[in-house]
C-alpha cells in the first residue's frame, strides 16, 4: 500500500519511478494476499516461533524495500553489487527507523522514492510499537492500552497483538499524531511534500530527511521547533500519551519513567546549552534542545553540527542515544524504564545493607516488580552492551578509529542513525554496512527475537548435522545412554 501511495506521489510529481513502484506495490500485495490465503498462520505459535516470525516480517519488508530501490534505479551507476549494498542499507535503515542514508545527494532522488523512504520509516515505527505492546510487554508499561491487561501479558505467545482494541488504540494515536505533525510542518512553510515526509519520519523516530543536510538544510526555525516537539513526544510511552489524551493528567505524571525522561531531557538541555553558549554565546539554544530531543528519542534528525561542541555535551548525547526513548514508544535504545528499574534495584541493594532486616520490594509506578525481572534486566543489559561492543569491534575492522566504530554501532543498535564524527553513511564500506544492517534489525526488535532466532537456527543446524552424521553410521554418546 505504501508503495502504491509513493507511486501516486511520484506520478503527481511527474517522476519516472511511478510505474516501477506501482507494479512493485501490486506485486507485493498479491504475494501477501496469496500467502495469507494459502498459509494460515498458527494462531498460537510458541514464543520462539513467534519471535522468529517477527524477525522474518522485518527481513521481508527490508527485502521488498531493497527491491524497490533496485528497480527504481535509485543507486545506479556504480554496478549491481554496489547498488544492491546501497539499496539494502537504505531499506534496512528505513524499516528499522534508524534513518542513516546511503544517498549521496538526497534531493536528487525522485519524490516517489523520498515518499517511500518516509513511509518505510513510518511502518517501521508502527512495527516497533506493535512489538512493544504485543511481543515484549515485559516492562513496556503498555498494558493499560488494552482492555484486558492479563491477556496482553500472554501476548508473548502470539505474534498477533492479543487485543484488537490495543492495536486500534495504537493506530489511532500513532496515526493521529503523525497527521498532526504533517499539518504542523506544513504550517511552517517547508512545503506540503516535505511536511509529509518529515511528519512521518518524526512520528516514527525514523529520521529520514528530504535534504542531504537533514532538517538543517531547510533553514527553518519553525520546522525545527515542530521537530523538537514531535521527536520528544514520539519518544514517550504510548500508554502515557493515551492517559494524556483521555485527560488522566494525574496518571501521566505518576509514571516514574516519564519523570525520569523529562528530568534527563532537562539535564541534557542545560548541559548542551552551556556547551553551545560557550561556542556561540547564545543563551537559549534551539540547537541544544534539538540535539537532545533528536538523540533521546533516537530519531537522529540533524539540525546542527554537534561535533564542534564541548565533549561534555556530545558524550552526554551519546549516552542519551544509548538509553534512547521511553518504553512503549516508537523509538529504540535501552529505554528509560529499564534504567529506572535498574536504579530501583541498586537502591534496594544499598538500603538492604543499611537495614539488614528490612523487607524491600522494588516498585515501579506503585506496582511491585518480581525478582525474576532483575535477571531479565541484567541479561538484557549484557545483550545490549554486547551487541554494541561486538558491533563496534566488527565496524572497527573497517574504520579508522574505535570511537567512530563505537558511535556507528551504537547509532545502529539504538536505531538513532545520527552519525556524529563518522563519515556519512554513503561513505561506509560494504563490510561496515554488512555489520550495521543486522545491528539495526536487532536494535529495532529489542534484540531478543534476533538472538532467539539465531539460537533456534543453530539448534536446527546442529540437529541436522547430527542426523546426517547418524545416517553415516556415527553415534553420539549422551549422559545416561547412547543415542543414535
Amino acid at each position, binding site marked *: 500500500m505504501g508503495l502504491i501511495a509513493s507511486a501516486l506521489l511520484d506520478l503527481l510529481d511527474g517522476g519516472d519511478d511511478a510505474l516501477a513502484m506501482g507494479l512493485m506495490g501490486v506485486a507485493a500485495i498479491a504475494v501477501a494476499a496469496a500467502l495469507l490465503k494459502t498459509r494460515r498462520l498458527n494462531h498460537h505459535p510458541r514464543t520462539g516461533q513467534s519471535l522468529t516470525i517477527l524477525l522474518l516480517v522485518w527481513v521481508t519488508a527490508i527485502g521488498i524495500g531493497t527491491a524497490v530501490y533496485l528497480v527504481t534505479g535509485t543507486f545506479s551507476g556504480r554496478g549491481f553489487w554496489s547498488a544492491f549494498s546501497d539499496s539494502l542499507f537504505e531499506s534496512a535503515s528505513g524499516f528499522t527507523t534508524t534513518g542513516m542514508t546511503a544517498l549521496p545527494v538526497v534531493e536528487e532522488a525522485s519524490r516517489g522514492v523520498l515518499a517511500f523512504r518516509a513511509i518505510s520509516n513510518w511502518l517501521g515505527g508502527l512495527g516497533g510499537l506493535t512489538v512493544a505492546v504485543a511481543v515484549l510487554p515485559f516492562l513496556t508499561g503498555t498494558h493499560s492500552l488494552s482492555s484486558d491487561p492479563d491477556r496482553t501479558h500472554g501476548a508473548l505467545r502470539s505474534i498477533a497483538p492479543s487485543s484488537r482494541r490495543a492495536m486500534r488504540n495504537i493506530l489511532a494515536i500513532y496515526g493521529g499524531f503523525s497527521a498532526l505533525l504533517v499539518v504542523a510542518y506544513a504550517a511552517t512553510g517547508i512545503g506540503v511534500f516535505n511536511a509529509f515526509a518529515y511528519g512521518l519520519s518524526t512520528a516514527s523516530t525514523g529520521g529520514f530527511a528530504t535534504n542531504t543536510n537533514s532538517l538543517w538544510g531547510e533553514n527553518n526555525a519553525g520546522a525545527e521547533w515542530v521537530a523538537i516537539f514531535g521527536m520528544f513526544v514520539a519518544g514517550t510511552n504510548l500508554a502515557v500519551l493515551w492517559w494524556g489524551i483521555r485527560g488522566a493528567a494525574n496518571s501521566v505524571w505518576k509514571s516514574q519513567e516519564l519523570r525520569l525522561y523529562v528530568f534527563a531531557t532537562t539535564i541534557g538541555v542545560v548541559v548542551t546549552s552551556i556547551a553551545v553558549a560557550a561556542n556561540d554565546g547564545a543563551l537559549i539554544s534551539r540547537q541544544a534542545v534539538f540535539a537532545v530531543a533528536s538523540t533521546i528519542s533516537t530519531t537522529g534528525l540533524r539540525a546542527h553540527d554537534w561535533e564542534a561542541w564541548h565533549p561534555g555535551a556530545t558524550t552526554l548525547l551519546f549516552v542519551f542515544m544509548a538509553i534512547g526513548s521511553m518504553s512503549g514508544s516508537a523509538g529504540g535504545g535501552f529505554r528509560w524504564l529499564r534504567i529506572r528499574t535498574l536504579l530501583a534495584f541498586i537502591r534496594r541493594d544499598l538500603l538492604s545493607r543499611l537495614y*539488614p*532486616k*528490612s*523487607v524491600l520490594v522494588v516498585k515501579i509506578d506503585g506496582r*511491585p516488580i518480581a525478582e525474576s525481572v532483575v535477571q531479565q534486566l541484567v541479561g538484557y543489559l549484557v545483550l545490549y552492551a554486547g551487541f554494541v561492543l561486538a558491533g563496534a569491534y566488527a565496524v572497527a575492522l573497517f574504520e579508522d578509529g574505535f570511537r567512530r566504530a563505537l558511535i556507528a554501532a551504537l547509532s545502529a543498535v539504538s536505531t538513532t542513525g545520527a552519525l556524529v564524527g563518522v563519515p556519512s553513511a554513503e561513505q561506509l564500506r560494504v563490510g561496515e554496512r554488512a555489520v550495521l544492517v543486522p545491528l539495526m534489525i536487532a536494535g529495532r526488535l529489542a534484540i531478543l527475537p534476533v538472538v532467539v532466532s539465531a539460537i533456534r537456527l543453530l539448534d536446527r543446524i546442529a540437529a541436522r548435522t547430527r542426523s546426517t552424521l547418524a545416517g553415516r553410521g556415527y553415534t553420539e554418546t549422551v549422559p545416561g545412554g547412547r543415542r543414535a
Partner: protein
Amino acid sequence: MHIIVVGAGEVGSYVADRLSREGHDVAVIDVDEARLQQVAQDLDVLTVAGSGTHPATLRQAGLERCDLVVAATSDDEVNLVTSMIAKQGGVESTIVRIEAPELMSDEAEEVLKASGADLVIDPDSETAKKVLDILEYPGASEVASMLRGEVVVIGARLSDDAPLAGMRLSEVAARYEPEWQFLVGAITRGDETIIPRGDQMLEAHDLLRVVCRRSARREIVELLGLARDIPKRIILLGGGRTAFMLADKLSARGAEVVLIERNPGRARFLAERLDHVLVLQGEITDVSLLIEARIEQAGAVVALTGEDHANVLACLYAKMSGAQETVAVTHNLQYLKLLDEIGIDSAISPRTASANGVLQFVRGVAQVQTFLTGDAEVLEFEVADGSVADGATVAELNLPKEALIGAIVRDGKAQIARGRSSLRKHDHLVLFAMPQAVDEAARLFA
C-alpha cells in the same frame, strides 16, 4: 432501651459496659462461654451463649423487645448476618462492626444496605484516626476534634513547669482575658474526675481536658508546658490493619515512616503495598532491630501490636533511647495507670474509639468523646428551637453541677463559652459532663 450486643470481645464487652452503666437493659451474646462468664462477672448484663446468626439465640436474648442490636464480633460476615436477622425480627436499629476495606467500598454498598445496618463501626480505622490526632498534638495524651474541627479537646497532664500549674481557674481567666481562647472542662486528679468551677486550683500532674479553638491550639499546648515539634520520623511497631492505615496516611503527609512486623509474609505484603515506608521484619522487643530502626532518632514511636506487654516494653525502650513521643495501644485498661507512671506519653484503646460511635448513636447526639482515664465525657449538642437554652445566657441555664459548656459554634465561628455568653437556636455546643448529668443537661437543649 433493650440492647443486644453480639460478641463479648474487647469492643463488645466495653460497649456493653458503657451502655449498661447508662441504665440500658443489655444482653450479651457470644459463642465463647468462658468469655461470657467473665462478662457476667464484671458487668451488670444478661449473657446468652450461642451465635448471633441463630434466630433462636437472639430470641433468647430478648429480640422481641429489643430496640438496638450491636453486632461487634471480629467476623464481618457474622455481624452482617446478625444485623439482617435482627432487622427481619423487627428490631428498629442495628450497628455493625466491619473490618474488611472491601466491604466499605462503594461496590459493597448494596451488601451493607441488605444487612439493614444503620451504623457501621470500624475500630481499627477509629484507632488510626486517634493516633493521627495525637501525633498532630505532640505532648497531648488525648485529642478529640469537635464541631467539625472548629474546636479541639486536648487531654494532657500538666507539667511541673507549666505556666498554668499552681493557678486558680479564675486567675487563669483574668490573666488570659480578653483573648481567652480556651477553657478547662474536666480535671482528673488521682482517681477522681471533676467538672471544675472558677475557684478550682490547678496542680502539676493534673490531667486536664481543655477545649480550645483550633487556631489557638499551639498556644494552649505551650501553656500546658507540652510544646514539642510535630514528629517527622515515625516508627510503627506492629503491622496490623491499624498500622497499615497509619503508615499509608503518614507517608502521604510526607513523614518518614518505619514499620516493624513480626510475620515475614505480612511484612512482604506491607512492603508491596505501602509506598515510601521502610518495612523491617522481626520482633518489636528485639533491641537490635529497634537499634537498626534508629529508634533514638524517632520523633514518635507507636506500638500497635495485639500484645500489650510487647507494646509497653518497646515504648519504654524507645523513651529510654531518646524517642520524643511514645504512643501505646493497650487492650487491657488496667495498664493505663502504669503507662502513665512509667512515662509513656499516650495510650489508645481500640475499644473506646468504637464505643464512642455507639454511644453517639444511642443518645442521638452529634458526637460523644469518652476518655480512657476518668468518666467525664465530651458531647456535642444543637440548641433546639424553643428549648430552655434558646435565648438564655450560659449563667442563666442552671446546668447540673457535673456539666459545663465549653464552646459554642454559631454560623461556623467558634467561641469559648463564658457565663455571659448567650445561646440561640441552632447553636452547636461542646458540653463536658459526667455520665449521670448527661440526661439532665440534654433536656435544656432539646
